[in-house]
């Protein structure tokens, strides 16, 4: 989108000096306050509705029950154990995706012929729902860490490849020329110019990859597992233990939000010149 000049949209708005300090505080945190209010209202309404509607504990739960179930999960250590089990393939798969994806993408971005050769091939893989191969991978590699790690890797490697490629292509040509005229070789270019330029793209890729990696873990565990957070969710579902199931689901949501928003925050803090995207 092109930068448009700021236009005053409401001419009746008082000038900045006229606004007192307190309203300005409320205004600055307006979005945050409204959001918090909405979340609180949502949970309150959820709790309150079962004062009027009979609760069928086999199908629905309410916040007070979920909280009680959650305390149970925490006390018994089940939740911590399941999360720890799921975290291993999650991080191993992501780490492998970074280690393989970023260098591959950098070479694709720097060497046009490599780019021409691999771009269509990888795009096909990226566009096809690779999750569909999960049953095969689970049968072949088993239900343990290797199977899940490979699913996570195969889902999360592509954002790194394509973003690293885009990062290299966005490198300022003059920087390359400077390094060359100072006598720098290919390796210096990769290390001193391309890697720093790829970094913000890599972090952006991580934000996308985290979501896909979570899908990979869940798919792997829904299929066949004996522990892990995905297994816990589907087992509580089979047991009709809805409150504990909600607890696990909310935990996964919280983790997803913390990871995604955390990376977004890191992006804004570390690379403030790259807003948007």
């Amino acid at each position: 989108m092109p930068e448009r000049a700021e236009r005053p949209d409401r001419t009746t708005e008082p000038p900045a000096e006229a606004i007192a300090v307190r309203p300005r505080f409320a205004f600055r945190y307006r979005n945050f306050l409204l959001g918090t209010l909405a979340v609180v209202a949502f949970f309150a309404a959820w709790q309150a509705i079962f004062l009027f509607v009979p609760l069928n504990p086999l199908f629905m739960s309410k916040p007070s029950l979920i909280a009680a179930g959650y305390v149970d999960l925490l006390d018994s250590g089940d939740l911590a154990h399941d999360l720890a089990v799921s975290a291993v393939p999650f991080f191993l798969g992501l780490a492998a995706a970074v280690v393989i994806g970023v260098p591959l993408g950098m070479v694709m971005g720097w060497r046009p012929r490599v780019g021409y050769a691999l771009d269509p091939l990888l795009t096909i893989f990226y566009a096809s729902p690779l999750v569909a191969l999960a049953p095969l991978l689970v049968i072949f590699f088993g239900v343990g860490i290797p199977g899940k790690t490979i699913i996570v890797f195969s889902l999360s490697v592509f954002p790194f490849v394509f973003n690293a490629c885009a990062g290299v292509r966005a490198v300022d040509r003059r920087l390359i020329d400077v390094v060359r005229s100072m006598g720098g070789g290919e390796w210096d270019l990769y290390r001193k110019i391309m890697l720093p330029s790829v970094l913000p793209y890599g972090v952006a890729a991580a934000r996308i990859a985290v979501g896909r990696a979570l899908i990979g873990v869940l798919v792997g565990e829904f299929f066949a597992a004996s522990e892990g957070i995905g297994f816990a969710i589907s087992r509580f579902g089979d047991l009709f233990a809805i409150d504990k199931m909600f607890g696990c689901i909310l935990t996964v949501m919280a983790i997803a939000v913390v990871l995604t928003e955390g990376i977004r925050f890191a992006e804004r803090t570390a690379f403030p010149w790259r807003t948007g995207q």
Partner: protein
Amino acid sequence: MAETQILDGARPEAGGGEGASPGRRLWRRIEPAALGTGSIVLMLVLWQFLPDVLPMKAGTKLFFTVPSGIAATLWQMFASGSIWAPLAVSAEAFILGLGLAILVGLPLGVLLGRSSVLAAMCDPFITAFNATPRLVFLPLLLLWFGLGLWSKLAVVFLGALFPLLINTYEGVRHADRLLINVVRSFGASEWDIARLVVVPNALPFIIVGLRLAIGRAVLGVVVAEFFGSQDGLGVVMVRAASEFKVDVVFAGLIVFAALSLIMTGLVQVLERRLSRWRPQHVNAD
């Protein structure tokens, strides 16, 4: 010498200016396509002949298939017509879920884009649902809607809704204030503003959202059928995997990928059709 090689590798245009021979120029034009197809063909050929070159245990062979086998299976599935019934079941969930997501996502996106209070209130929910893989709700949805169309539809709907909603919202927020004020000073209602200014302006955003939504919807159909369904192409694939019919799994993958590519292509056609009125300089951004 090493230096020139780097230059050549980094910028193929450096080697051939005006003085390049016609053959070289032709090669330069077709090089990207040739290398792209070449690598795909090379991969297929290697895959095809891998079992002949690499000694494999009988157990591993059970899990292995070659492209010719996949192609034969795919052909056979279409020739015998055995693919149509499960494909129809999957397509039904896909189309209904995506349609519902469009019906809900577009108006809601416009509404949130026009009202900053509503947007601020919905933001935590949208952020949370968008960050979370919708797959996590599948066991819950299975419990609520049972096996079959409805739970599948719900997964597809949840997957496709958020890209559409968020992109529509962003597009609406980017609408030109000046145009809105002009229309408003001619006495337009909020409905007119949406119809005349906001939605046409948000179209490129909406199209991108739609493309993302198609990918998510296909993913939703696949996983929903893997875990909670009795028929559909995904079910065929899971059964095939457990019977070691690896060909069928890959054939299903190809059909799903093709479905997603065809739908994305249709969206591109739609985009061109719908943005014909748009002046070129706006398109360029």
